[in-house]
């Protein structure tokens, strides 16, 4: 790449090399597609709970009602709620973890220790919480 006095840039065109890092390619595509899906899923979830139901009206009874009680059989509506939340949970956590990874890499990537420790905490916290959430969605809510 050479820069001419006028400030114009001339790039030598080479054939695009085969992608060496398939993980980054997969995550790049995942961020776009999951983002499009989450726009629909997360905005409908937020709009339903905060506008239609209202934050002040959200109760544990609503959770039990929507998810179905732990240990009891569930109806189709409750199955749909769980599948909907499961989709948001998985997509949002992966999307969020990868987003944090890119930001951390940009700002503290040159400090390997800080980057590893920070990402270790973020991934550990996210994975634990995702496992807890998934188990709760599989088993259902405990009635008081």
């Amino acid at each position, binding site marked *: 790449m050479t820069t001419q006095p006028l400030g114009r840039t001339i790039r030598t065109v080479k054939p695009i090399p085969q992608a060496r890092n398939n993980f980054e390619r997969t995550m790049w595509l995942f961020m776009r597609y999951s983002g*499009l899906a989450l*726009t629909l899923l997360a905005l409908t979830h937020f709009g339903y709970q905060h506008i239609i139901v209202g934050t002040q009206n959200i109760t544990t009874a609503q959770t039990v009602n929507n998810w179905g009680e732990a240990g009891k059989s569930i109806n189709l509506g409750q199955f749909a709620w769980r599948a909907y939340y499961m989709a948001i949970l998985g997509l949002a956590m992966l999307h969020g973890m990868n987003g*944090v990874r890119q930001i951390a890499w940009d700002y503290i990537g040159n400090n390997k220790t800080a980057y590893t420790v920070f990402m270790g905490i973020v991934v550990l916290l996210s994975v634990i919480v995702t496992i807890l959430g998934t*188990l709760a969605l599989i088993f259902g809510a405990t009635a008081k």
Partner: protein
Amino acid sequence: MEGLMTIVKEGWRYKGSGNVMWMAHRISGLGIMFFLILHVFGMSMSFFNPALHEIMLETYKTPLFAVGELGLAACLVFHSINGTRIALLELRPEWWLQQKKATQYSLVATVVIGVPMILIMAMASINHFVK
């Protein structure tokens, strides 16, 4: 840290409006991720510890979280719409010629969808707390 300060100080001038959108996308994303972890933990307690689940739901009904809720709505709406613009344009490179217009449209859509949402939630909170 030094790199972070440079970004904060110079980020607004560097590359103009596109860079501001890029930074706003990162900041709103971090905000959503922070609440997401808290939220999923709270909801999972509906199975593991219903008493703690109730405490977390009641915490969301305090004035502090009522304000945070408005910030979350702003982050979520902006991140969703701006993210849709990014995804559509990057998956369809022939649309890059409309880059500037797409940015303006996504900002307008953020305001048109976000402001009424925030107003409705703010009114509900005001009606609840100021009686």
